[in-house]
């Protein structure tokens, strides 16, 4: 029971819908490049569990500052998931606020229900079933055995619109959710708007960029040339020609399998530090997750299943629903796969997926709400029981979720904040809370300052007259650090933890 409860806490707190869906989204977009996040999603929490095992006899000291940051991280992750719910609602053609309210209400009630452990296990099982059923159905309909699916995809010549696909038959909204970039066309294409709407075409004539806007009547179409980029008002459904290449899709299956260009080591390192540090911050606390062998066995099995699911979802989506690439893959388009792959008969499977995601969100919220209580500092222990407080958090996160913000960007910022503030205290042993709190404050300050500089656009500003070479290097370094604040905040926090720990010991 203890191992199972701990494993459920770990898996549900980590695998909120945003984290469930990021690996398939990135694997669809980047091919093997997306595997990096998939591997991190499995191994980061296991690493956190093992770090927690190393600290089991002397759990990390967590201060009031840590408690406040943990509440903020939980609130940000709830916001990210509600923002995803809004994106999914838009992609499915219903108002954004419906999705936010439908996700927030049940999740808040279920998360604050008293009998959380048993309920979380049930919710997690519902989530797994809700994810697995549509995948099994799409795989069955595709007629491709799992053992040959990857090879079949990697040998596909191109990704074309199928005659009966949603983008050809009923049309799709290419501007929904967090999708902002125009759709770039690789070949000639006639696009029509079955219900009418305004479209904007960005052209390049004689090396000069230009833009044309059309207000299309219902059924009216516009011809586009290779190289044109298409934008539409949100809510405008556009119909594409069958047999044409899907704009935004890789050139071929081989191109997808080869990945999109050389990986950037700095970005890989930052993502690794964010996810590993975030997992350690949340789960390497033995008061929250008991780091035992059975916990690792159960949680590891669930995480492994999640990665296998993500790979299956990626491969079968690309095989059976290439429309998923249209205009670039987002988390919301990954949710549309059952509808795209199965059409109208797939609606029960689409519903099953949505129920699974709602269950995952409720279970995840329950775990995240409990985490500040494990900090064991004063009022933080009771914050998980405070219905009014968490209702206010859900209301604020829901209100923020009405704006279109990339859910993965919010989740990454939350995990980066957790890594910068809490990971040093969890990794480095020490009895005294002062060193841990001081290091957490330094990491928090560096992370927030660099993030604020990025939002303010300050990396381009050089504070004093400097020689051009030095000013250039300064801008480049600040550009990297403001884009990836964890690269500075986590090392700063670790160094201060070491120094303060030694001073305390002396």
């Amino acid at each position, binding site marked *: 029971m203890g*191992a199972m409860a701990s494993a459920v806490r770990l898996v549900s707190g980590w695998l909120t819908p945003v984290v469930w869906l990021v690996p398939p989204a990135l694997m669809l977009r980047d091919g093997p490049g997306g595997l990096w996040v998939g*591997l991190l999603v499995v191994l980061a929490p296991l690493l956190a569990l093992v770090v927690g095992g190393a600290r089991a006899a002397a759990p990390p000291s967590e201060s009031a500052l840590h408690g406040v940051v943990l509440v903020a991280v939980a609130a940000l992750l709830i916001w990210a998931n509600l923002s995803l719910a809004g994106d999914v609602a838009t992609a499915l053609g219903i108002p954004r606020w419906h999705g936010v309210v439908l996700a927030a209400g049940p999740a808040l009630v279920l998360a604050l229900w008293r009998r959380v452990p048993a309920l979380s296990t049930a919710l997690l099982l519902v989530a797994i079933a809700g994810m697995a059923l549509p995948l099994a159905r799409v795989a069955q309909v595709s007629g491709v055995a799992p053992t040959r699916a*990857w090879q079949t995809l990697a040998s596909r010549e191109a990704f074309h619109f199928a005659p009966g696909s949603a983008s050809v038959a009923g049309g799709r909204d290419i501007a929904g959710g967090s999708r902002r970039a125009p759709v770039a066309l690789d070949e000639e294409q006639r696009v029509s708007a079955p219900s009418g709407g305004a479209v904007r075409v960005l052209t390049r004539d004689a090396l000069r960029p230009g833009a044309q806007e059309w207000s299309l009547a219902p059924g009216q179409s516009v011809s586009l040339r290779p190289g044109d980029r298409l934008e539409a008002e949100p809510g405008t459904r556009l119909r594409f020609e069958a047999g044409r290449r899907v704009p935004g899709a890789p050139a071929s299956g081989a191109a997808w399998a080869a990945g999109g260009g050389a990986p950037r080591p700095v970005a*890989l390192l930052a993502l690794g530090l964010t996810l590993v540090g975030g997992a350690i911050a949340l789960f390497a606390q033995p008061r*929250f997750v008991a780091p*035992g062998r059975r916990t690792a066995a159960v949680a590891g099995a669930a995480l492994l299943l999640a990665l296998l699911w993500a790979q299956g979802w990626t491969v079968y989506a690309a095989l059976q629903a290439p429309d998923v690439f249209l205009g670039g893959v987002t988390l919301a388009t990954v949710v549309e796969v059952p509808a795209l792959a199965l059409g109208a008969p797939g609606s029960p499977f689409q519903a099953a997926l949505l129920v699974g995601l709602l269950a995952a969100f409720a279970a995840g919220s329950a775990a995240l709400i409990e985490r500040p209580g494990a900090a*064991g500092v004063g009022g933080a222990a009771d914050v998980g029981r405070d219905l009014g407080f968490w209702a206010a958090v859900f209301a604020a996160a829901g209100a923020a979720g009405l704006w279109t913000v990339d859910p993965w960007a919010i989740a990454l910022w939350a995990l980066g904040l957790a890594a910068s503030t809490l990971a040093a205290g969890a990794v480095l042993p020490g009895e005294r809370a002062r060193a841990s709190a001081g290091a957490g404050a330094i990491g928090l300050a560096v992370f927030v300052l660099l993030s604020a500089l990025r939002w303010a656009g300050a990396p381009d500003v050089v504070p004093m007259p400097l020689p051009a070479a030095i000013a250039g290097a300064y801008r480049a370094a600040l550009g990297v650090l403001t884009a990836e604040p964890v690269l500075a905040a986590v090392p700063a926090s670790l160094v201060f933890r070491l120094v303060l720990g030694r001073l305390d010991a002396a």
Partner: protein
Amino acid sequence: MTGSPHVRSRARRRRGATWRPILGAVVLALLVAALPLLWLAPASPGGVRVGGVSIEWWYGGLLAPVAGWAVAAWALRGERDESGAADAPGQVLPVHGEPDRADAESTPSEPS
């Protein structure tokens, strides 16, 4: 002073219990780091196909996760899974891994 064989084996077990999670964490970190190293290596060995699937997919999609799972279970072999988990929000697990009474009594007699 050498102490009894029983106390020596218990001390060895406790040292193992301390070092195993640290070693496990290092191995897990190496398993994670190997994937980008595969991409950054010259001549892109990750793209080579074995059984129709590229090495990077074999490694990142199956071998490393399974190995990581096994390593985590091995590293936590000496740790106990706490029973009596929280029943309500905000209620947290008691700290575990404390030496039990027999261990506490044997500690003073361990060789220094």
